[in-house]
């Protein structure tokens, strides 16, 4: 006969819904190493607590189904963006260890109340399973293969992001020194899974996943470019930088300052009142000497990657399908990790940011970078989605091309890993 009033030390069983394997693995390691197994991952049917990733494909539907089946089960919702209505416990990504732990500990307190029982559904399933408090079969082991697959290749690593990743080591962290590992791969680090490796979680303040392009050089250049095209005249942009002129006819940009300098300015907020955008007289061109001219597309793409740093412009809809008007010229634009795959997916059909992450199994920051850069150069727009209108089913992550194995080998060869 099983004991419903469990001792406080019994591990609580956590079911996670809508998360990719990497995220599950991270949680598994976190519970095992940091929480010393006071929580374990378990099958949805027998869990005490559920964590639902609201950024997953069909998350709303999964949640409804979950709530119907387990109406009394405490649930934690996680998402990149705050929900409009706030029922239930919500945690914003990237998930912070302290926040997750405190939410779980609060729930644990409720479990320790003697009157607390499982829902009928849960009880039934538990009986059927013979009900050990924690069944090894229900636990989700970490998969290291997924992790390897995520590692950046030399050919398309984004130096800006790489730099940022490196700086994570400098962040203060809450526990004793050791490896620092974020709960989710969004911050750009890979999971170090291993037997006795200490897993440390940075307690750095939450990185936001949205930004306001209008407050940066990127937005001012976009605005000036729009004006230049509308008037079909050269336009100058004055601000806390040396002269910049946009040439709409040839779709080029002239900058007096070194590019390195301008890219360094990319993250500096510049308010509109500090910027003057001026339509130049016909025939007014940049001086013949000095400065540098390049296609505005290349400049704006790179500047945006630097400014966005893995974020998306505010007001971007995570769930709206993204319509790519055509492929970006990716052989010449600054590489964004997974950029080719994202472009290939969106060229097939409009897919939302959340679905893209699921289908490609790619950390959101890369998808966000790509989205920001492609929309800055006018290649992507979001389609208005009617509620309830799911659109065409996207390429599933399971769907396999018959020559998939071969393609993988060709890619490995092209990237020089299997010479």
């Amino acid at each position: 006969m099983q004991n419903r009033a469990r001792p406080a030390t019994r591990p609580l069983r956590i079911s996670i819904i809508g998360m990719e394997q990497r995220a599950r693995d991270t949680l598994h390691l976190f519970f095992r190493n940091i929480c010393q197994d006071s929580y374990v991952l378990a099958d949805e049917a027998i869990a005490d607590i559920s964590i639902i990733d609201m950024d997953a494909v069909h998350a709303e539907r999964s949640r409804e189904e979950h709530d119907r089946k387990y109406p009394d089960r405490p649930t934690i919702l996680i998402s990149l963006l705050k929900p409009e209505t706030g029922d239930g416990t919500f945690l914003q990504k990237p998930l912070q260890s302290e926040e997750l732990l405190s939410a779980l500990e609060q729930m644990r307190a409720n479990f320790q109340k003697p009157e607390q029982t499982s829902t009928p559904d849960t009880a039934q399933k538990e009986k059927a399973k013979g009900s050990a408090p924690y069944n090894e079969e229900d636990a989700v082991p970490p998969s290291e293969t997924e992790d390897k697959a995520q590692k950046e290749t030399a050919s398309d690593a984004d130096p800006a992001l790489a730099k940022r990743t490196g700086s994570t080591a400098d962040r203060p962290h809450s526990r004793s020194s050791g490896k620092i590992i974020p709960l989710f791969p969004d911050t750009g680090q890979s999971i170090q899974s291993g037997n006795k490796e200490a897993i440390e979680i940075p307690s750095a303040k939450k990185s936001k996943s949205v930004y306001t392009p209008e407050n940066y050089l990127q937005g001012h250049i976009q605005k000036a470019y729009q004006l230049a095209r509308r008037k079909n005249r050269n336009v100058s942009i004055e601000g806390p930088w040396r002269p910049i002129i946009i040439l709409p006819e040839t779709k080029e940009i002239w900058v007096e300052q070194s590019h390195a300098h301008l890219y360094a300015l990319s993250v500096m907020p510049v308010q509109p009142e500090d910027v003057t955008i001026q339509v130049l007289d016909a025939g007014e061109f940049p001086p013949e000497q000095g400065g540098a001219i390049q296609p505005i597309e290349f400049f704006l793409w790179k500047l945006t990657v630097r400014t966005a740093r893995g974020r998306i412009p505010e007001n971007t809809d995570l769930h709206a399908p993204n319509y790519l008007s055509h492929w970006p010229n990716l052989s010449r634009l600054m590489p964004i990790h997974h950029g080719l795959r994202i472009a290939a997916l969106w060229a097939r059909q409009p897919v939302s940011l959340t679905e893209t992450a699921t289908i490609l199994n790619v950390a959101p920051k890369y998808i966000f970078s790509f989205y920001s850069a492609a929309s800055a150069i006018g290649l992507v727009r979001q389609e208005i989605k009617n509620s309830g209108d799911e659109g065409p089913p996207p390429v599933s992550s399971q769907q396999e091309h018959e020559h998939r194995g071969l393609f993988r080998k060709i890619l490995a060869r092209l990237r020089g890993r299997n010479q």
Partner: protein
Amino acid sequence: MDNNYKLIFTGPVGAGKTTAIRSLSDMEPVTTDAVASDMTQNIKETTTVALDYGCMQLEGGERLHIYGTPGQERFNFMWDILAKGGIGLILLLDNTRSDPFQDMHFFLNSFREFIDSTHLAIGITQTDRSATPRIEQYHEELKSTGLKVPVFEIDARQRRDVVVLVEALLFSLAPNLKVSA
């Protein structure tokens, strides 16, 4: 085990097919450049009269055969035979030619059935010698064909450029393809 996987390069005379295949192939490509004794008109110093052939050895003993069609149109009776069983098409277009759009449509029409059953990636070469037409003009031109395909500026002499183009083709075929480390 020798599975007959093929990648096809096509495009007009001088677009860089032989050069691109050379940059991918394990061995010096077998090319039939300038062997034709009946070649009367000298468009360029050497031209491929039959086909180019290169090869990439893959893990597990498989091989990818890389074929280049001859640029000269009078040899296009070979194209169908060549394309059969191919995994996809790379079309190279020379930006310095008098009408690159006409070239593009010619090759798209010739290979349309093959493209529809596989996929296509387009590389525009010689952009260092002629900056126009611009890439977006190619996309504009492609609209009428209903093909939304990668069009990249490439220099066939740069392996990296050729590699990005082939990768784009592979991901177009299978966007959720993962590269194993």
